[in-house]
Every structure is written in structure tokens, then in C-alpha cells.
């Protein structure tokens, strides 16, 4: 798992890291070892770039229900 993937995964499960990130996002990302490109992608809220840097593969996210149109 890449450094960025590890950081984002840890962020989802670690309350202290999340609070550190909220108060000092760049310093927290640098401390976690993210490079400038990764930090810029996260900072600019560039979802497509973050997805690309985390391995891509943005799948279609749809309701998985074939009964959805059974009326």
C-alpha cells in the first residue's frame, strides 16, 4: 500500500490523526510522508487526482439492485 493510501486509511480510523489533520493539514500530511503532489491533490479537493494517485480504478457506483425498475 502506498504512503498516501496508508495515510488516508489511517485517517479513517484514527481520531487523533483526524483532529491533527483538521487543525494542521499540511504539517500532518508532511509528517506522514506524503509528497508535494499528493499534498496538493488533497489540499485542492481534487477527487480525480486523489483517485489517480491512490491507484485509480474509480468504479461505477450504483445501486446494486436489479429490482429497481420492477414495477
Amino acid at each position: 500500500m502506498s504512503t498516501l493510501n496508508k495515510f488516508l486509511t489511517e485517517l479513517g480510523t484514527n481520531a487523533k490523526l483526524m483532529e491533527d489533520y483538521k487543525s494542521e493539514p499540511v504539517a500532518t500530511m508532511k509528517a506522514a510522508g506524503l509528497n508535494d503532489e499528493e499534498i496538493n491533490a488533497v489540499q485542492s479537493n481534487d477527487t480525480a487526482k486523489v483517485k489517480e494517485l491512490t491507484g485509480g480504478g474509480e468504479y461505477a457506483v450504483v445501486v446494486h439492485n436489479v429490482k429497481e425498475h420492477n414495477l
Partner: protein
Amino acid sequence: MKTTPSSGSLTCIGTGITLAGQITTLSKDYLEQAEMVFGILPDKLSEDWVKSITPSYKSLQYLYGEGKSRRQTYQEMKDVVCQAVRDGNKVVLALYGHPGIFACVGHFAIETLRSEGYPAQMLPGVSADACLYADLGIDPGTTGCQAYEATQFLFSGVPLNTSAYTILWQIGLAGEHTLKTFKTTQKNLHAAVRVLNKWYPLEHEMILYEAPFIPVHHPRIDKFKLKDLPIMDLTSISTLVIPPLTGLKLDQESLNEFGLNISDFG
């Protein structure tokens, strides 16, 4: 002669919406102990995370295809999962969100496997509506809440209760009836406005909501008027939230059934 089922079993779990933090403790333990794990997750990042828990993870995303009916895709997904159980494996099917809300593959697999004598269960997960209530500050108990898959609602002609919240899932696929593509059209969105205008004025304020998949992102909460729906940027995860026109009111005819009067409520 009826054959005895193997030692296989199935547990369907939900991984939640936002990465890593919304899986339940029990579901994560089933993941760790599974012999085979299949999943439908939203991106490689989520898959990386699940693989870090269980290297046996295999994505079922390859069964999707533009132009291929999702009806066929979901049957194939069910077949893959069921065969792994029949082969004697303790299988986990990991789905993002809640594994049984607007999600048919787990339900199909459980029904099939139970009919064949295999143990199969579903554990609850954090669903998109759970995130929606938290992010929008809505309590569905305040006025009541009705939710439909958008196209299902738009095609059905069912009446809306305008005193309650209305949630239309997959508004970005509104009117898409072929199950073969992942987007809608301007024509469909204008039709959706006409249908909703039967219950709500064109100036009624609505919300487009998208739950964040990645912890660094914020939820999308865009307010707009019904008439502007066709110009909104919609994605496959966009949800339309329609606040009530009116709150709930006491109804004397209903209260009569309980021997009560409106005046009893001060």
C-alpha cells in the same frame, strides 16, 4: 440421493461509505477470518484497505460492462459467490455501505445458499442514508421520511407525502431504464422536474447530497431550486433530498379513532 452440503458458509458485510472507519468490529473480524473474500467496492483505495485486512480479497467489479445489463451482472456475481461456498469455503461478501440496502447480490446469494442448506447471514453496515442524516442534520423521525430509487419513483406514479422528507437515490440515473448505462439525459431530467412539479413548486429548495468516500473530503451539500435540476452536475452517487413543504399536522378524523381532540395537545 440428496447430498450433504460442504462446510462452506457465507457472511455478507458492509464496509460503510467513508474509507476504513465505518466497518463494524464484528464485520471486520469476519473479514479477517474468511477463507475467501469477494467484494464490490467503489475504488482501488478501498480495495487496498480490504486487501490489507485479508489478502484473499477478489473484486467482482470485472463483471460489470457498459452495454451489459446489470441484471446479468448481478446474477453472475451471485453465481461466483455461491460456487465458492459450495466448494467448502467460509466466504465473505463485502459491499460498500450496508450490504442489504439497495443491494441485491447479497440477498440473492443468501436466498440461494439457504435453499441449498448452507448457513448464510447478513450483518448490518453504515449506509449512505446513515451518512446523509448525520451530514445534513436531518432526523427522519421529526417529520417522517420516504425514500425511493429515483427512476423507480418517476416511473411508478406513486403519490408523495409532502409533509415528510423525500429522498431519491440515484437521481443521476433518473429515467435510465435499460440498466445498461450509468448516466441520464437532459430530456430525462426535464421529465423528472415535471413529475416532481406535481407535488412541489418549481421554486422549492432541494439538496443534492453526496457522501464522502475518502476521509479528507467533505460531503457534497448543494442547495438549488427544483426548476434548476437539469443544470446541476449529477454523478452516479448524487442523491436528491427534498425537504417537506409542510410539517405534520394533527388530523381530527384520525384522533377520533383514539377518542382524542386536537385541543388535548395544547
